[in-house]
């Protein structure tokens, strides 16, 4: 290709490539090697493929794979049923208190899934909070595929809700009204115009939910095991966590999981490339929204119920447990205590250290994924460089890598003998793990943002005397910053509560929020764990919101 890029790209490309190799490729390759060479941990390439057959021949494998797909599919369907009506109502109608609902539906993101699950268990099991308050329990519902689906749906449906409300809002304002001018009733305009145009965004968000569901650990572990419902992730955890350890088997299962996720993402790509419309460029206009009329109360009730179930129940369960002197004391005034919170802020068991570690790591992860994500997205969207498809794949790949796989891969890769330096056993290994797991978030947002930016904005900067680097910093970064900032705040929240990888790779002597909570649970201090969880959720919800508010006040972000 002779129309080469005009300079200024090479450093960006190298930065992207270097970052991606360290963050994504290294652990992934280590996992692949482990699956093939069972003794790679000892630095030996002996007996390749010797254990692959045994793992794949395990009859339970088929059941685990089937269960994984089944659970993912159920969560996708449930999320769609829950989120689409809410998203559409939010997008097209004047829903009272809309910003409040948005914040409330954002909170489930911030509740670590394993905590939410525990909250549900403590609410619904016999003598749980529900029974203590109303005299009945729903235990049979909870410990089943249905219960798992429900708990996981409440955790992931906001992805779909926000995707639907954004795209439908843009499409509805611009195209559905045109349909109505040409004689379509509102319902027909919705079915014939709005829905088809929103389909790619909807599909993308649903596949994201699928990927998240099949690599979720906490809920299947807590609810599924009792229902005899094994999935690949719990299978991997068993192989990594039960003596004797079977790392090659875990690696093989991981690759199977990767294949499933990858299939989902290829499907999403295929849908997006086949039917992608530039609809997001139009500014959504609030003025166009219609009143709900008779439906005001039902819609409000729906929002209220969903917000209560997804945010209220887990948060109340967490708070009640944190405020209880003893679990067996139940919901009683004389059992009320602030001791657990006092213990957190009194640095009991290193609680404050864990908070500081996690918040620091969260900020560092957000900055690093922001940098790699924005540079990779730039190379992929704005250049014609060779090998940019590879960069694109590497930014998507971690979506398919469960945290535990990343963690094992990182240990394998960075604990090889003879490395001149290694991040292993320092906080940097956690940073690498978080960056790998969360990189797709920033990369995806940045990609979408770059697609929206006309090529001439950068060209103009170059013509008017800016070098490639200056144009990137002065023009492109500020333009993608609103999207990037939201993604980075999300990364911050997710990184600061990451559990699975943290438990496996946390350096000796270093606690994070999640390992702290997990440890308290393991040692019977459920209340202390829950107090920490509550503090964390409040922090990770409030800090990003405050940041966004500050940024929008400085008019760095519109909306």
């Amino acid at each position: 290709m002779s129309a080469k890029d005009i300079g200024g790209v090479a450093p960006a490309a190298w930065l992207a490539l270097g970052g991606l190799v360290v963050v994504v490729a290294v652990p992934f390759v280590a996992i692949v090697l482990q699956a093939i060479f069972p003794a790679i941990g000892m630095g030996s390439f002996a007996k390749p493929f010797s254990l692959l057959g045994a793992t794949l021949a395990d009859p339970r494998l088929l059941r685990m794979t089937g269960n994984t797909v089944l659970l993912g599919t159920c969560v996708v369907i449930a999320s769609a049923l829950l989120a689409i009506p809410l998203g559409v109502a939010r997008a097209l109608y004047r829903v009272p208190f809309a910003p409040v609902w948005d914040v409330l539906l954002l909170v489930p993101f911030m509740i670590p899934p394993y905590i939410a699950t525990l909250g549900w268990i403590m609410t619904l099991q016999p003598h749980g909070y529900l029974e203590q308050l109303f005299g009945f329990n729903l235990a049979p519902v909870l410990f089943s595929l249905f219960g798992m689906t429900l708990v996981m749906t409440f955790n992931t449906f906001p992805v779909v809700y926000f995707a639907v409300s954004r795209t439908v809002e843009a499409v509805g304002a611009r195209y559905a009204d045109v349909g109505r001018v040409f004689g379509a009733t509102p319902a027909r305009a919705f079915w014939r115009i709005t829905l088809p145009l929103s389909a790619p965004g909807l599909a993308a968000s649903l596949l994201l939910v699928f990927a998240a569901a099949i690599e979720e650990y906490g809920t299947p572990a807590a609810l599924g095991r009792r229902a005899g419902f094994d999935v690949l992730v719990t299978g991997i955890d068993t192989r990594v966590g039960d003596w004797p350890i079977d790392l090659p088997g875990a690696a093989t299962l991981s690759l199977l999981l990767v294949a499933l996720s990858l299939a989902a993402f290829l499907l999403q790509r295929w849908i997006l490339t086949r039917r992608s419309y530039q609809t997001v460029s139009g500014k959504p206009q609030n003025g166009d929204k219609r009143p709900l009329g008779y439906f005001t109360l039902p819609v409000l009730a729906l929002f209220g119920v969903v917000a209560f179930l997804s945010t209220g129940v887990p948060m109340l369960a967490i708070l009640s447990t944190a405020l209880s002197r003893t679990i067996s004391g139940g919901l009683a005034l004389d059992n009320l205590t602030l001791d657990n919170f006092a213990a957190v802020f009194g640095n009991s068991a290193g609680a404050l250290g864990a908070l500081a570690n996690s918040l620091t790591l969260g900020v560092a992860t957000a900055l690093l994924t922001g940098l790699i994500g924005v540079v990779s997205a730039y190379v992929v969207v704005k250049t014609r460089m060779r090998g940019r498809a590879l960069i694109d794949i590497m930014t998507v790949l971690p979506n398919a890598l469960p945290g535990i796989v990343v963690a094992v891969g990182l240990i394998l890769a960075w604990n090889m003998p003879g490395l001149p330096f290694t991040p292993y056993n320092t906080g940097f290994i956690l940073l690498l793990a978080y960056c790998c797991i969360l990189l797709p978030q920033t990369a995806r947002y940045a990609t979408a943002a770059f697609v929206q930016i006309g090529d001439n904005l950068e060209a103009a900067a170059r013509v008017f005397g800016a070098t490639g680097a200056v144009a990137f910093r002065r023009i492109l970064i500020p333009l993608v910053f609103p999207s990037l900032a939201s993604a980075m705040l999300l990364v911050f929240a997710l990184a600061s509560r990451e559990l699975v990888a943290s438990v496996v790779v946390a350096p000796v002597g270093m606690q994070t929020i999640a390992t702290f909570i997990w440890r308290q649970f393991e040692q019977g201090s459920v209340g202390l764990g829950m107090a920490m969880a509550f503090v964390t959720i409040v922090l990770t919800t409030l800090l990003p919101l405050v940041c966004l508010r500050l940024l929008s006040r400085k008019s760095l972000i519109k909306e």
Partner: protein
Amino acid sequence: MSKKIDQDADAVSAHDLALHYGDTIVLKGIDLSLSRGRTLALLGPSGCGKTTLLRLVAGLLQPTRGTVRIAGQPVADARTGLFAPPERRNLGMVFQDYALWPHLTVGGNVSFPLEMRGVARAERAARTMRALRRVGLEAYVDRRPSDLSGGQQQRVAIARAIVAEPRLILFDEPLSNLDRELRENMVGELAGLIAELRLTAIYVTHDHAEALTLADEVAVMRAGEIAQLAAPDDLVARPASAEVADFLRLGGTARLSWRSGTWFLAGSDHAVAHEAAPSRGREAQVLLPLAAVALSGPSHKALPARVVRSQFRGDGHLATVVLAGSPDVELQLLSAARLRPGEQIGLSIDPGRIRWFGEESHSTQEKKVVTC
């Protein structure tokens, strides 16, 4: 083509400039030069390569072959691999989509080129205001571009292009996103600005009126090549080919054949001209300019024709007609009265005003209705 021997006198020149994307040839080998203080228009339909040529000069693309020089200095040379990035070419540019940075104020946009050149803050502010004053927008310095109308945005883009007094300004269809009235006003303003500031400019457009109004020289481009490079008057008086004439809408083009001492419209009995044209063979390609075609009374010498469409043009009605029996040949004429589509009329052609093309010109059988 007025190619200068002294390269240093040229503000910009290109030699054998070509660009291929794989097997697709976008530019075939362009030679051109432009003296300081003059304006060159690149005129042509969509996909003719004019914007590509402009982006090669800007440094937004690298040539596959050939060289570009600005002020005598080579800035791109495919053979040596020399390539100066855009920021080192000291240019100004106005983009079709304005390309104003939405996150900067109007003032921030305009002062950006000065900032990149390291101009001190106070001087920057003064020059920014001067440039904005020139386009009549000094009151908008603190506004966001998105608060402005399309015409105002384009004025900001122009202010940004001239503020650093670059040695060359590139215009990439700057007015095509504006409505007609605004466009016509802006052409006048731009012409004034170019003359007043003695700008050296390359102006890409698909609008022949803009090109002929603004430029000292016009390069008509077609399929990756320059079909004709000439001053506007020359271009109108002596289009090099039927395609050029067609594109400039100078009138209708037709093929004539020489039969028994008379030029007939090819494939018909309509006699058009009588004088012999010995240097040409028995076939000729001609332009029948507006001025050559007139309505005539119903005399026996009149050519019978049917009106296809008619459009008001300010100084009369521009009618497109076909001669009876030759539906492929469309002629144009100016009529004081409105002619209705389908109306039968008689035409007279002034042979003295016919523009004869060389035999080498292509057939016009393939109708080229320029739509861009």
